[in-house]
């Protein structure tokens, strides 16, 4: 009998506690870092090894590349058929240069199936808007600054070393 009253007390206590609902379209949830949304693609990093296309369980990735003047492979086309992509993240795991990553975009409803065939340009735009573009640029700048600092530091050393 008293268990019931204790239970009722617990429920009444919940009235004053904070609510856990997010007002969804106005407030977006914060996703963890490894959230698997639609992909982003960085063509400069891709070495056309074809691992992502080979490991995809539904064969939704198709790509083509060619050798450029320096005998390096450069990517020409890269398509993801998003209708059959199962967002399993295997292509990201297997990529040796982290050229393909997953963003946190999942609100992709469209009125026509044509919009689900994502090509390289869309994926690169996705990289710039919702992906790691900013983080990569910031990392590049920082690396460049460090390099410049080190070079000027060593230049000063050789100068002072030369003088002394």
């Amino acid at each position: 009998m008293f268990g019931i009253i204790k239970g009722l007390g617990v429920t009444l206590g919940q009235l004053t506690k904070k609510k856990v609902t997010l007002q969804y379209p106005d407030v977006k949830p914060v996703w963890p870092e490894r959230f698997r949304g639609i992909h982003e693609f960085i063509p400069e990093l891709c070495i056309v090894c074809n691992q992502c296309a080979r490991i995809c369980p539904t064969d939704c990735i198709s790509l083509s590349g060619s050798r450029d003047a320096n005998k390096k492979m450069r990517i020409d086309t890269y398509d993801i058929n998003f209708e059959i992509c199962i967002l399993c993240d295997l292509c990201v795991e297997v990529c040796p240069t982290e050229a393909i990553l997953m963003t946190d975009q999942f609100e992709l409803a469209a009125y026509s199936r044509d919009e689900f065939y994502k090509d390289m340009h869309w994926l690169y735009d996705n990289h710039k808007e919702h992906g790691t573009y900013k983080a990569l640029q910031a990392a590049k700048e920082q690396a460049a600054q460090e390099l410049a600092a080190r070079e000027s530091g060593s230049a000063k050393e050789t100068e002072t070393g030369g003088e002394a």
Partner: protein
Amino acid sequence: MFSWQTQPLTGFNFIGMVIGAVVVLALLLLIVMYLIFFLRKVVAWMQNRIGPNRVGPWGLFQSMADVLKLLLKEDIVPENADRALFMIAPIIAFVPAFMVLAVIPYTATHIFTAGLNIGVLYYIALSSITILGIVLGGWASNNKYSLVGGLRSAAQMISYEIPLGMSVLGVVMLAGTLNLTTIVQQQATDRFGWYIIPQIIGFVVFMIAAIAELNQTPFDLPEAESELVAGYFTEYTGFRFAFFMLTEFVYLFAISALATTLFLGGWLGPWLPSWLWFAIKTSAVIFFMFWVRASMPRIRTDLLMGLAWKVLIPVALFNILLTGLLSLLL
């Protein structure tokens, strides 16, 4: 205008009655709509979430949107269902719910109340007719889940009607009358105060039996979604489903009003107008039922009947005995 009982029935009086009934029905629909909204909000707040808050300011138009949706849905009658019974069942379930509201005293001036000298008996007798509607709905649907739901519901409601009636007997003994208006007036002058105090055992039995009568959690086996799809109203769609829902919520309001009248002193109270006191007390009882609904799991089928027959009836009988003894001695 309200001395219709002592005059022969004229056309004008008849039209007045019909208009009165329509006005009461409209008011009732409004009350039921906001009861449903109140339920969703209370249960949500107790579960750490906000209830409906998008449709209209603070979600107030949610019930209206739901009612509109139900009215616009397709009216499906299953092919092998017993057509006449299928259509009549919601009506048989709803009409007694609407009729019992006539005897409850809402205000101190009893403008809308029929002063029946057998008010309590009228209430309890009419609420038994709803069970017929429910069993008919379960049978006429030609669906085994509905049938089982309907039979479970009938067994439960009939079993719990007995403690419901018996728990009220203590109050009737103290008041000396079955007339609901007189019972409230007696509570104003009773030496122990409102009848909840001398009749606390009766009140507890009444609340448990009332929640079982209404098929509310923890006694909602007939509508157990996880077990019976939707019980006796599986096959009902659109407007007929709205009828069953309406029945349930009108009964909720009616039984809370009865509990207020019998145990909590009806419209009595200082300072505020009498109808406001009635509304506050009824809302408190309704909140209590929603609170229980949000807190407790369902009772097992085999323990359900045992609770009615082996626990509540002896306790109600004991309450009657005690009331009789103490009335003689004190």
